[in-house]
């Protein structure tokens, strides 16, 4: 086993092991005291060690990996269909793994301070830290498994475990009435997509005769089947990566603790869908229909998310909708055939979104509320948080030279190219993504500016508390994340970096060898001016409105559209009417049928079995004589039967 393969295998294994050990710690103790503190300390050690080790492993993998590597071992052979255990490593894998592990480590460290009984807490609350930290470890392990998996079944395992952990983590805050519902919603909505994902994987696996990704990619699939499989996979991707119309779970998932939001939104769950498409891009590239569908979904998601973010009052909901919108950029880049640009934006987005959520967590921690109508004027009292947030929002809006600017530019450049010269997808897809992307730039600048002004400037609107910068354990993760959020974009100038991000460099070696080194991801040209102008426009409008009324909400600019934006086009209500209620009624009917018909049969047969068992058991009371008689009678009867029937059977 070569070093990279060993590292790649250990990568998901380490957090898995620490997570499983963590689950064994006593989850909650009725009384505060030494036992709870000890369990909490053990959980902290386990969680941070696991995350730090996987970060080390990921960095080592990035350093040692010089060529794509793959290792496979047959797990079980189900007669014709082989399931393998294997890893498939290339530099993209290593980069994404570094991002995942880094965010996981930041979240683990941050959670130490965030989930602690502060002096403000009136009652002694048991934060149930051990299961929480263990679930984060498992979540990380699942995502890393998706990242390194060399087999679609293995990838599916990671994918599903992630769904389960997200459910548990979103529901962690028991005191919030919204949390269980939000967790259930996230689970069910992503589940709808996962059905498609599972079917897509099954189709591909059966068609190729193997679930190994290398085999699936190399196999020459029939066109119809490939189209069906890709569209089915897209359903799963839409669920996990919160694409319209399956995006509704993401804003609600804000009910989870803030570090969890950072984890889900930045590098793990929502990135998984995009990552899988990038990984299987050689397949998607052959199916223009799937790319067109993806492009349309991406454009809608992008605009919908950005527009909905404009009028939210909750700090975290603004960020959540901004995630939806940024995911539109990612899938848009995939739709126009630029997986490298998508992965570039995925990495920068991971950095600045994690930063934004953790900084928002610091605000919430200090001010005790997430509603912007009760915040304001924090830039004086919380300078560290303010500057971190400024960098994060700048990167989000695409302010040069912060990272978001370069990655968003590479996405827009790819879309423009596709619009003008065509690509794997039809040209109109390129136009749609490009135009939506440009409008999105202005909207993003608008809501980022609004968030900054409403939270950090103006007069404080809740003077009761004295907010202050968070303690070191919260501050350091935020500060360390500012570095990649600010600087990662510059990596886009490097040709090496671009080559790292080209997935399946091995599959298209001859093309990449001559094309890519001279083709970095960042393109400085006159087209850069257009998004810059739009950015200035969006930010300027929000600022101008705020100047006129520092206490008011710049969202009033939206006029009658404001409720539309605040309720995100009433899509939740639509979903409730069209899907939830009919299904609820159907379920009630099914339940009645089940209870009366199916259960009736089952309990009936259960009763018969119970009664039979009783009769037979009664026969066995008087053991020895009956046992001996049984043996002799059985031997006699069977011997007779064998003699009479003979060997004619």
């Amino acid at each position, binding site marked *: 086993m070569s070093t990279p393969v060993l590292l790649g295998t250990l990568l998901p294994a380490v957090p898995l092991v620490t997570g499983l050990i963590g689950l064994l710690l006593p989850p909650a103790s009725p009384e505060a005291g030494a036992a709870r503190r000890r369990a909490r300390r053990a959980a902290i050690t386990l969680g941070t060690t696991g995350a730090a080790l996987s970060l080390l492993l990921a960095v080592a993998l990035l350093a040692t990996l010089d060529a794509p590597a793959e290792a496979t071992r047959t797990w079980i052979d189900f007669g014709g269909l082989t399931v393998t255990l294997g890893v498939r490593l290339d530099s993209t894998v290593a980069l994404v793994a570094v991002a995942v592990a880094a965010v996981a480590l930041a979240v683990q460290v941050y959670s130490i301070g965030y989930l602690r009984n502060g002096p403000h807490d009136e009652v002694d609350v048991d934060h149930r830290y051990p299961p929480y930290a263990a679930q984060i470890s498992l979540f990380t392990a699942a995502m890393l498994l998706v990242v390194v998996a060399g087999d679609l079944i293995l990838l599916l395992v990671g994918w599903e475990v992630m769904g389960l952990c997200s459910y548990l983590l979103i529901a962690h805050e028991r005191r919030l009435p919204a949390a269980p519902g939000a967790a259930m919603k996230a689970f069910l909505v992503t589940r709808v997509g996962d059905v498609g994902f599972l079917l897509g994987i099954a189709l591909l696996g059966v068609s190729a005769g193997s679930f190994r990704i290398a085999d699936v990619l190399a196999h020459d699939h029939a066109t119809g089947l490939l189209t069906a499989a890709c569209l089915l996979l897209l359903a799963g991707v839409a669920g996990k990566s919160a694409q319209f119309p399956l995006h509704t779970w993401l804003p609600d998932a804000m009910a989870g603790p803030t570090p969890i939001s950072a984890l889900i939104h930045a590098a793990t769950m929502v990135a998984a869908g995009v990552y899988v498409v990038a990984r299987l891009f050689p397949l998607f590239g052959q199916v223009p229909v799937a790319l067109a569908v993806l492009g349309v979904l991406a454009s809608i998601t992008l605009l919908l998310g950005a527009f909905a973010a404009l009028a939210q009052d909750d700090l975290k909901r603004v960020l959540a909708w901004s995630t939806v919108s940024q995911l539109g950029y990612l899938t848009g880049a995939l739709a126009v055939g630029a997986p490298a640009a998508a992965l570039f934006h995925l990495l920068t987005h991971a950095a600045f979104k994690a930063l934004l959520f953790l900084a928002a967590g610091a605000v919430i921690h200090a001010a005790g509320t997430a509603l912007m109508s009760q915040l304001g004027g924090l830039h004086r009292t919380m300078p560290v948080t303010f500057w971190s947030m400024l960098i994060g929002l700048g990167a989000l809006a695409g302010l040069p030279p912060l990272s978001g600017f370069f990655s968003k530019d590479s996405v827009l450049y790819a879309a423009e190219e596709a619009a003008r010269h065509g690509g794997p997808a039809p040209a109109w897809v390129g136009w749609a993504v490009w135009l939506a992307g440009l409008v999105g730039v202005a909207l993003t600048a608008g809501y980022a500016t609004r968030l900054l002004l409403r939270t950090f400037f103006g007069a404080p609107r809740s003077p009761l508390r004295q907010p202050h910068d968070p303690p070191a354990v919260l501050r350091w993760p935020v500060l360390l994340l500012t570095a990649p959020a600010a600087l990662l974009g510059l990596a886009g100038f490097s040709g090496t970096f671009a080559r790292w991000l080209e997935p399946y460099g091995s599959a298209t070696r001859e093309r990449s060898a001559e094309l890519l080194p001279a083709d970095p991801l960042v393109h400085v040209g006159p087209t850069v001016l257009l998004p810059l102008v739009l950015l200035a426009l969006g930010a300027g409008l929000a600022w101008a409105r705020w100047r006129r009324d520092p206490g008011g909400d710049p969202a009033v600019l939206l006029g009658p559209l404001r409720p539309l934006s605040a309720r995100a086009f009433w899509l939740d209500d639509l979903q409730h009417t069209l899907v939830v209620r009919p299904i609820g009624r159907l379920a009630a009917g099914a339940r009645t049928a089940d209870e009366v018909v199916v259960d009736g049969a089952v309990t009936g047969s259960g009763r018969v079995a119970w009664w*039979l068992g009783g009769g037979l058991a009664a026969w066995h009371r008087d053991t020895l004589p009956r046992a001996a008689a049984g*043996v002799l009678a059985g031997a006699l009867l069977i011997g007779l039967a064998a003699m009479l029937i003979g060997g004619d059977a």
Partner: protein
Amino acid sequence: MSMVQTVDNVALLPAYLAAGTAVLVLLADLLVARARVTVSAAALGALATAAGAILVGGGGERRTFCVGADCSYVFGGRAALVAVLVALLTLGVLGLSGPLLRAGATPVGEYCFLLAASMTGGVTLGAAGDLISLIVALETLTLPLYVLVGLRRGSLASIEAAMTFFVVSVVATTLTLLGAALLYASTGALHLGRLGVLFAEQPELLDVPLTTVAVALVVVGLTVKVAAVPFHAWAPTTYDGAPLPVAAYLSTVSKLGGVVALLAVVQHALPARTTGPVLALLAVLTMTVGNLVALRQRRTVRLLAWSSVAQAGYILAPLGALALAAGRTGDARAAAYAAAVAYTVFFVVLELAAFAAVVALRPAGADGGTLEELRGAARRRPWAAVGLALALVGLAGLPPGLAGLFAKVTVVRSLLDGGAGWLALVVAVNAVLGLAYYLRVVAALWSTGQPAAVPTDPTPAVAPTDPAAVATGPVATGPAATGPAATGPAVTPTEPAAVLVRAKPVAAVLAAATVVALVVGFAPQLVLDLAAR
């Protein structure tokens, strides 16, 4: 033909080691007379036997005691697998015996000697090449058990159990011997291979009713050892009356021995045309009756006993596929034998884990107790409860116990390959029945509700509590057995954790069996490959 045979002593090495273990234990008990030394000698001997079997088995097939082409002792892959399993299971049972031996009602030297003697039979059994060696090996395996079952001083239940076991077993051996004699009378052969060749070459042999009856008698006699219905009635009483480790031995090694003997005659010697229908009938009866009666058991060991009756049905089921012509092709036969062996391996591992967990959950030297007494045990002994839950779930064939799941899948697949879809259906229905009582026990482990009052109708086996254990326990062994000596239904689940067994070997056996079960659950191919050899 020369009257002087060359004996391949290397092939016999595992048997020598096992027999040597018994002698060593006897000597150790006689000369040193310290319990620890005796038990260690037995354990070391079992380990050495396993190592020897691996060593010899790795070197290809060895034959000895040959007359012409027929050999009475064939040590190949299957024999090595059986020998290693028997030795390791014996080691496991020794590990479980700590609390029992320390409780003082059982003589240590005799106990270990008898176990080692029984192990010798098991090690030889897999290599037996003719009917007489086979029966002698099987009896060597069983004889010491009659004594072991009744070894607890002053326990009426033990005596009753031993008596039942003895009578039924002797009747069974008589039947097998009668069958073998009739077979010899009609064919003139005793070697398994020779019989197989004869039946293949002269199908008209089977037209004589005597031959058919002989075949049926041999099979019936051997199925008594695996406790197949209707030859099973000894099992629950015997298991429940025997000390827990002996019950564990009965349900693992003894059952393995029966399966191996049955496989040997069915695979190599007897015509599938006759054995197939008999085995199919026995499999259906065994699964169904075993599961149905297990539903109504209130005592832990009785439930395990009935469940192991039912499990024997699953083991026999793939062989039942031989009843149909489609099941008699070369491929289908190989698949059926491999499935039976694989299921047996999975089963003995899980069964050992289950018994180890019961031993760990019960007071030292106590019997299995009732299910009520296990209620809420998970809060007192979480690890042991998790082990028991995993083993039971594995026996039921549910996902966390992947070993059991793959075992059932293997059986069903071999049945479908052999065209015996109806039998596969019976297996599936029985698996559902099995879920009911396995999960009931698992649920009881985590149940928080107050146990119902004392069971209203104590079964006869409950009544004879160990008066001797109560009387001699504290005196004989001091602090190790003070509290727990008060065994029987009087012990309430609320007893303090301190008086429960804290024996390290038991925990080690439980952990090892659980780990093995988990490992073969995740790498079932290992066992399937081994079983197909």
